[in-house]
């Protein structure tokens, strides 16, 4: 069944979602948009191509308290910080980004010791995907079999029509959520047709693509190649590419204390930073930027494949779009031969 809402009633819809759980949705910020916890329905915008930062922070915030402690003359008192696992809704996730959750699941949720933070939130998450209606030249999600209007992995797929938004639920969770929105109109046969048309159009959006067959082996084979020096020559070793990426999962654990009050925190980190692998002794296995770029590419396109059977990239293009020196991950991988 299709439901719909007029564009002018978007705020009403957003306000409705806010009643069902904490809502994260795109908000204008600087020259772009980012997913934010919504407190004011008016702040939400659905006029965007894709957000600067990925939606991963909804489940995996940049900084999160693990333990709160207090250091005094009497000793140290500590208490695990409660895991904030209430239900969350993300509105407006592009189909490629939806796939990133499944990639992260394999690491945080599906192997070895489970990460309780990711895990608790993941099971309480409702994803409202938002089909693309055009392609940006740097995207390459087609390379991973993802199309511009895939519903896979989402609870609800939303598309934009001229004057309205159309919704279709794909899970029970999605169906129930839509049912709690009395002001959503039931779609007519015409709307059904429109939805199909728009989804079909989304499927046909052509992004750049990449031959991913045996890619992990190819990369393993050129580990020692001078290619990496060349590929990384312009790299600044900032953290932009990894911080905006939906599938980068690296973090640091730091104790941050002010006047005796403090928290042990899990904080995003990046393999592009020079101190990422710096030992206390001063030894560092990765001193050169070529080694760090190689780690980023290999981790995504080789090691992750070895360990989890999937490439840890969804082709969202964020790293390329935000790189201050225009290093393009697709080009780097393609030319790595």
């Amino acid at each position, binding site marked *: 069944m299709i439901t719909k809402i007029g564009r002018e009633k978007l705020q009403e819809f957003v306000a409705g979602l806010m009643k069902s759980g904490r809502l994260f949705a795109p908000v204008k910020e600087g020259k772009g948009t980012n997913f934010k916890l919504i407190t004011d329905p008016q702040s939400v915008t659905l006029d965007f191509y894709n957000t600067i930062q990925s939606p991963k922070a909804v489940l995996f915030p*940049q900084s999160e308290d693990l333990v709160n402690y207090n250091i005094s003359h009497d000793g140290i008192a500590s208490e695990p910080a409660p895991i904030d696992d209430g239900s969350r809704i993300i509105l407006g996730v592009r189909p490629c980004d939806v796939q990133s959750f499944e990639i992260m699941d394999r690491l945080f949720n599906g192997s070895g010791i489970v990460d309780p933070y990711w895990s608790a939130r993941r099971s309480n998450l409702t994803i409202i995907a938002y089909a693309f209606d055009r392609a940006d*030249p740097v995207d390459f999600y087609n390379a991973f079999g993802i199309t511009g209007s895939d519903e896979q992995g989402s609870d609800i797929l939303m598309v934009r029509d001229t004057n309205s938004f159309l919704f279709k639920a794909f899970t029970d969770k999605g169906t129930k959520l839509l049912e709690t929105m009395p002001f959503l109109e039931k779609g007519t046969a015409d709307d059904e047709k429109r939805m199909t048309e728009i989804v079909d159009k989304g499927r046909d959006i052509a992004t750049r693509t990449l031959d991913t067959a045996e890619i992990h082996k190819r990369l393993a084979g050129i580990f020692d190649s001078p290619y990496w020096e060349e590929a990384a020559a*312009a790299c600044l070793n*900032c953290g932009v590419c990894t911080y905006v990426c939906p599938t980068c999962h690296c973090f640091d654990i730091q104790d941050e204390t002010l006047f005796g009050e403090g928290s042990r925190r899990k904080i995003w980190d990046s393999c592009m*930073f020079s*101190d990422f692998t710096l030992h206390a002794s001063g030894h560092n296995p990765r001193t050169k930027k070529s080694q760090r770029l190689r780690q980023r590419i290999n981790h995504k396109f080789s090691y992750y494949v070895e360990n989890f059977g999937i490439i840890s990239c969804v082709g969202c293009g964020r790293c390329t779009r*935000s790189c201050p020196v225009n290093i*393009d991950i697709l080009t780097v991988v393609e030319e790595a031969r």
Partner: protein
Amino acid sequence: MIQIEKRLREEAKRLLETKEAAVVLAFGRGFDEEHPMPLILRKPSDAEKIVFNEYCTFNMARHLTEFPPGTKIAVAVKAADSRAVTVLIQEGKVKREDLIILGIPVAGMKDFRSGTAIDATTTGPAVNPVLYDILLADLLPEPKDVSPYDVLAEIEAMSPDDRWGFWSAEFSRCIRCYACRKACPLCYCETCFVDQAKPRWSEKSPSASSNMMFHLTRFYHLAGRCIDCGSCSRACPMDIPLYLFHKKVSKECEEMFDQAAGMCVDAKPVMVDFKVEDSDDILL
């Protein structure tokens, strides 16, 4: 710009062939025309890869400190970039005799992310390099009656509370990716104070206070040194207008010392040692 590209290729080829330079720092093609990349050349045959267009905004002085001392480097510089080279020479990070400076007088550069023109609001208004060995085009008339500090009028007119609010809001968006620091030609410290673990100066978590701490400290490390190239602001994925703060500090320094950073290689740099207490009138 085509002419500059041609001249840049010729000079790069010649300098590498004659071994006058071991490395040439220029611009090359990125994934498309509008997205060039910094290019670091060592072979004369690679000179063909050089590109120059309005999107070649990179300050190649940033890469000068990556090479071992004594490396003969030819570096392509635009107006502000040449001032960065000057500061690096003044601070002893590179030797004048090791450099061959390829000066590019140029106007009309554009930001490759937004496509918008880069003008005196985000960088200095000058169009000619201040220091060069070889000029790749004729000098251009410098724009008159434009100050790099005009853009500050709005923020200077704010009440202290509003100004504090403005900066707090801007910095609260910072994700601490350090692209600003990494894109800056003058942020060359081996271990930046934010990365120092012993003692730890700054928290790694982005928060209003730790972001403010990071940015204020960085601003003051750059006081009297920032050459207003705008690289940090263009690098920032969150569009935080860092240039406003740098310009404000530069303006104060210029008023105090009657000298702008990196204008003259023989001048003694104003190594001003700002104290955080002095900063109130800038921030507030």
